[in-house]
């Protein structure tokens, strides 16, 4: 009896990580003018960030269709008995909802599928999918896997600094952070995804001070079980940060991840951040 793990492209799992853990990644869609791209498949992150600053064409995004999920689940059902499917925060996207609807469409005769709302994005979602895969590899049942994945979801958080809130505002994905938009001064807002929505944490007077604060925010959350440093366009900055925060995770094992096109559409170029899972308190 085997269990498959499904997540979506906003998890920012690299192809290597996805393959290593045997995770199936369902892509969201990016619409630019009349063209539709598959998130991270037919449009790369770099291409997306190159296009983003063009204010005339605002890219749109959409959740995977119910049909896409049905196809994915049916295909996996050929080789697996059960499926756990973990997705982008339901408060930010219909991606989770689409998966739930696909399961309903498949009906009671299909495989048993547990759909989980990660209430997170990027590697803060990715780590929940990895946790599920690890649990399954350890021989856990689906129920046990769901419980362990939920525990990871509770401890996962994405923290990020954006160059500007413009992208969050124009995409409407901002929650309480809306009131945070302000200052005539060029400030760098630092936000966190908490309870599924982007919430303001702090404002830094410039990028350098913001990076210092990001590192401090990561340190405040230690000890950590998982950690990745996140970027959209500035890999060098991300790697420099990674070198300094590696001590907060066991064996210094952390990832440097590029935010994918869909979520990137709402935060813009210049983002730096961290996705983490706090250690279980003993």
């Amino acid at each position, binding site marked *: 009896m085997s269990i498959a793990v499904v997540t979506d492209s906003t998890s920012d799992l690299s192809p290597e990580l996805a393959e290593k853990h045997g995770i199936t990644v369902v892509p969201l869609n990016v619409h630019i003018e009349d063209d539709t791209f598959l998130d991270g498949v037919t449009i790369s992150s770099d291409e997306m960030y190159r296009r983003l600053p063009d204010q005339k064409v605002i890219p749109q995004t959409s959740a995977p269709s119910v049909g896409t999920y049905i196809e994915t689940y049916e295909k996996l059902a050929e080789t697996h008995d059960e499926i756990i499917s973990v997705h982008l925060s339901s408060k930010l996207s219909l991606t989770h909802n689409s998966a739930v609807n696909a399961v309903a469409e498949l009906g009671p005769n299909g495989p048993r599928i547990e759909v989980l709302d990660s209430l997170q994005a990027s590697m803060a979602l990715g780590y929940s999918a990895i946790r599920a895969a690890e649990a399954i590899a350890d021989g856990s049942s689906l129920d046990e896997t769901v419980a362990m994945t939920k525990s990871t979801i509770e401890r996962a958080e994405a923290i990020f600094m954006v160059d500007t809130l413009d992208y969050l505002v124009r995409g409407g994905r901002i929650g309480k952070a809306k009131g*945070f938009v302000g200052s005539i*001064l060029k400030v760098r807002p630092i936000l966190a995804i908490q309870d599924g929505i982007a*919430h*303001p944490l702090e404002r830094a007077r410039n990028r350098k*001070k913001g990076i210092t604060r990001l590192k401090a925010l990561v340190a405040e959350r230690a000890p950590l079980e998982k950690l990745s440093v996140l970027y959209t366009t500035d890999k060098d900055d991300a790697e420099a940060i990674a070198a300094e925060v590696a001590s907060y995770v066991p064996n210094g094992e952390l990832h440097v991840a590029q935010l994918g096109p869909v979520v990137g559409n709402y935060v813009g170029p210049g983002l730096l951040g961290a996705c983490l899972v706090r250690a279980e308190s003993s």
Partner: protein
Amino acid sequence: MQDSTTKIASGTSSRLTDMIRATTKAVEANRDTINALNVFPVPDGDTGTNMLLTLRSIVEDLPANSTESANNVSKTLARSALLGARGNSGLILAQYFKGLAEAIGDATELTGKHLARSIRIASDNSYKALPNPVEGTMLTVYRECAEVAEASAARNDSLISVLEDVAAESLASVRRTPELLPVLKEAEVVDSGGFGFAVMLDGALRALCGEQPVGRILDVPMPEGKTFSGSVKADFVDASEEIDWGYCTVFAIQADNLDLDKIRDHMDRIGRSPIVDGTEDIAKVHVHMENPGEALTAGISYGQLSNIEIANMDDQAADWAADRREDDRPISETPAATPVDIAVVAVVAGDGLTDLIISTGMGTASIVEGGDTMNPSVSDLLAAVEAAPSDQVILLPNNKNVVPAAKEVPGLSSKDVRVISTRSVQTGVAALLEFNATQSLDDNESAMNEVLGEIGDGRVCLASRDVTVHGHEIRKGMAFATFNDDIVAVGQEPLLVLDKLITKHAADAEIITVYTRETLTPEQVSTATETLENKFSDIEIEVVYGGQPHYEYLIAVE
């Protein structure tokens, strides 16, 4: 002088109310002189005005019925003095009335001992009320007067004899202030607030002795061999209810080969606070005049006039005063009506800075207009705090002279009020950037306090008179820069002085924010931005329109 045993027929309370009314008249008559003494180092000559407005609010609350006993009169004194206290000097003045109330206690008659006790309390409280008490100020005058008053009252408890001795000592004490505070000596003035107190005692004594008018113009007690050069307007003796601001007159002169210095001198002769800036082809003139026509006539003798703007500052001042008196709420640009978890109340002058604070406050901030020359009173601040849409309020005084008044607010308000001692609007903005509506009031308070030490604040302004400070000879109209209150650069051209100021701090700066004055044109702002960005390419420099009065530039160094 009348016999010290003279009893005034109508009883003690009218003696007390008459004396307080007389002190107000006396300060009215000498307000310009008191203001003129308070010129160092930036042109915020407002001690006299602050004292007068504080006294007026006390007088307004006095019982109309002059047969009330002293203890009944004194009951309202402490609170109304504190609520009306405006600026540092007003607050120190309020300590005297608090002292008077405490000293009188249940007594129905005001005695010499009460007077001595009240000055002693005022002295002790004032030294405690200020973070860094400085000698050679109103504090010294209080303290020395208290000593003389106590000795005098021990000899003879008669109110008149104690008041006579104290009034004489106050003048002598003021005369000595330049010996204690070198900056007064350099500026060739004596302490303005101390002189204001001497003026009050003079008025009180004249009322007690039945002399008229109670408010007479007093000579400034200068040290031996010195005379006070400040001009006192003769017509000020019958000080009107309204503050005499005149017209703020702004226009441009276009011609070939304009001599800016000559125009500046001309404007200075006929008006007040002139600012003349520009090039050989075009000059921008800003001057305060009783008769704006005179300024235009003068201007037209140099070339063609354009962009003429005349604002009646009397109206502005009257509106402002009326708003305050009505007391519904202080001038609040954007009443933050929607309830918020934590509200912010900030003192700001200037439209650009107001917008900046509002935007940075994220829907939680309301504004009390004020700053260097218009210190809001405790009651202004209290009203804004009470009107703020939360029971948790963070108060940003944004001016070191407003900090003491702000610190009185938590004790008077029914709300949980935290005062962040922002000494300037620049530190206020930095503190507000730390504000996070989703955090607790305690967390916000400590985060905001923490940043205060990380910000250096500087300013560039034009000297309102010739002055020598810390060895810098600054002539009227010259630009000078201060950083954390030390004078660091002097020059003719404000932008060059700003350049020098930034150069001095470039090494330890990461970000410098420059706020520009209301009189600066967008072209001047962009010139400033370009000049600075080119020169200081290693630092992030952000130039923002501040619209503040008085200061050509305000800077924050972080």
